[in-house]
């Protein structure tokens, strides 16, 4: 068991997914504060038909091609959301739900069709993209994921101040000359990159929880955007690394679900125990306040 863990391949996977978790914590903070948490979810689900189409075109399971296909339909899905929300009377949330359902449905149909068509359906391995699987990953896959994550991280660090002003007060940002629409679009592209990089290990279905849960948990620990981003990054890394380790120990369990559960445990812990904003602290303060009123009677 221990040998399994310290095998070179496992270490590489741990490093790659750790970086991925860190970046999804960072980008997740931006999306949560921009109130675009669901956009990440729609995007993730909309990647499935792209994965399948890319497999049909290439004819074998080559990760770079599959992820490129995923990125194309994922971003196309988001494009459809914005067309629906702006061009019709359908509101944002309905447009997101609609795109998510239709694209995901199409993806499921395609992947089943591929599996029935080919004699050895499992060769496609498309099912592993639903809930994530790291055991079959090879070094070049991990390097690709790490490279995408590094690019995203670099851009966020570089443009941190610009994102901060756009997220907090976009009309002031616009009035002072910042291209808020472009920065918004860039943020969505970054979400797209993170989602696509996360598909092999986290999977389509739960990718959004890796964006949202670390950020939500981090909010309990701080009142500053910078700190929230860093804490969220740490929680994200913790979740992915824990997920990979557990899935190595228990072969059958999908990594994406394990990562989500690990993040959720940190969230519950934060919601109860964080000083000042956690439930226990606030409850104690409320009680102390009520008591002080009693005494003064």
């Amino acid at each position, binding site marked *: 068991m221990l040998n399994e863990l310290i095998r070179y391949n496992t270490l590489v996977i741990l490093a790659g997914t750790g970086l991925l978790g860190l970046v999804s914590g960072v980008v997740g903070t931006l999306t949560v504060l921009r109130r675009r948490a669901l956009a990440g979810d729609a995007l993730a689900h909309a990647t499935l038909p792209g994965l399948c189409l890319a497999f049909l075109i290439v004819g074998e399971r080559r990760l770079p091609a599959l992820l490129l296909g995923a990125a194309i339909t994922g971003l196309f899905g988001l494009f459809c959301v914005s067309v629906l929300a702006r061009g019709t009377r359908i509101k944002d949330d309905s447009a997101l739900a609609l795109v998510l359902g239709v694209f995901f449905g199409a993806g499921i149909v395609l992947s089943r069709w591929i599996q029935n068509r080919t004699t050895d359906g499992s060769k496609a391995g498309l099912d592993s993209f639903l809930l994530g699987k790291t055991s079959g990953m090879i070094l070049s896959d991990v390097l690709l994921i790490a490279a995408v994550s590094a690019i995203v991280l670099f851009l966020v660090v570089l443009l941190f101040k610009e994102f901060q002003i756009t997220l907090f007060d976009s009309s002031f940002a616009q009035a002072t000359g*910042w291209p808020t629409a472009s920065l918004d679009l860039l943020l969505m592209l970054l979400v797209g990159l993170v989602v696509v990089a996360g598909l092999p290990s986290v999977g389509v279905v739960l990718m959004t929880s890796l964006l949202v849960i670390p950020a939500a948990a981090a909010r309990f620990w701080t009142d*500053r955007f910078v700190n929230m981003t860093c804490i969220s990054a740490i929680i994200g890394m913790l979740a992915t690394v824990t997920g990979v380790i557990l899935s190595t120990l228990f072969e059958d369990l999908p990594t994406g679900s394990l990562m989500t559960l690990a993040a959720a445990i940190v969230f519950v812990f934060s919601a109860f125990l964080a000083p000042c904003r956690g439930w226990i602290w606030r409850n104690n303060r409320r009680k102390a306040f009520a008591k002080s009123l009693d005494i003064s009677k």
Partner: protein
Amino acid sequence: MNQSLAEMPTEMKHKRTDITAPPVLEVHDLTVAYREKPVLWHIDFAVTKPALVGIVGPNGAGKSTLIKAILGLLPVSSGTVEVFGRPLKKERLHVGYVPQRESVDWDFPIQVLDVVLMGTYGRLGWFRRPRETERKLARECLARMGLEGLESRQIGQLSGGQQQRVFLARALAQQADLYFMDEPMAGVDAATEHAIFQVLAELRDQGKTVVVVHHDLRSVPEKFDQLLLVNQRLIAYGPTSDVFTADLLRKTYGGRLAILEELAVALKVGRPTP
């Protein structure tokens, strides 16, 4: 008081107050429409010299829309805006803005000083982070708005009046020459309102122009140099003493009784009976 303000080249100040210099703000034929329904028609006016300018009109008259359209925050159907003789887009560093308090999420994880520092972002430009110089400036602006000691509070913990002053401090940190303020007195107490008006008057005395959307008619005559009456169309623009008349105000507000009573009080305050 403010070192960087004092350091502003004097020839620039003169240029901005000179009669031959281009007007501070020139709005020409501005029309704004929401879904093909015009909300502002053919707004035409020019602020020729530094002044404290009030924008007054009934609810739904398009006061906020007017300054948002001037700043380019809304799509306009027609019209041009020039600041110091150049298109506003090229003069953004000289234009400050105080949005309505409701326009942001006060639960956002950010502290007071970080908000004020955003006023320096325009001058910093892309990629550069605020440093000690900017922090010092931001602290001076906070002090000027009477917010010393609150710099590391989360903004949601402040009172409404304090939040409003944080926005003003951020605008001061912009070190602009022309300011647009959207209801900066909304929901503040009398003492804060007085303090805010004092800062606005100081800005005017430093040769800056401040354009303020305002809703309280009573304070108009003694506070503003120039007045713009708007109700979808421009009713009147000019020195407050010429524009703040019963006739023009009735034209702006229509025949609304409550407003007219308020107006009677305002006129009494503004012009003591001989």
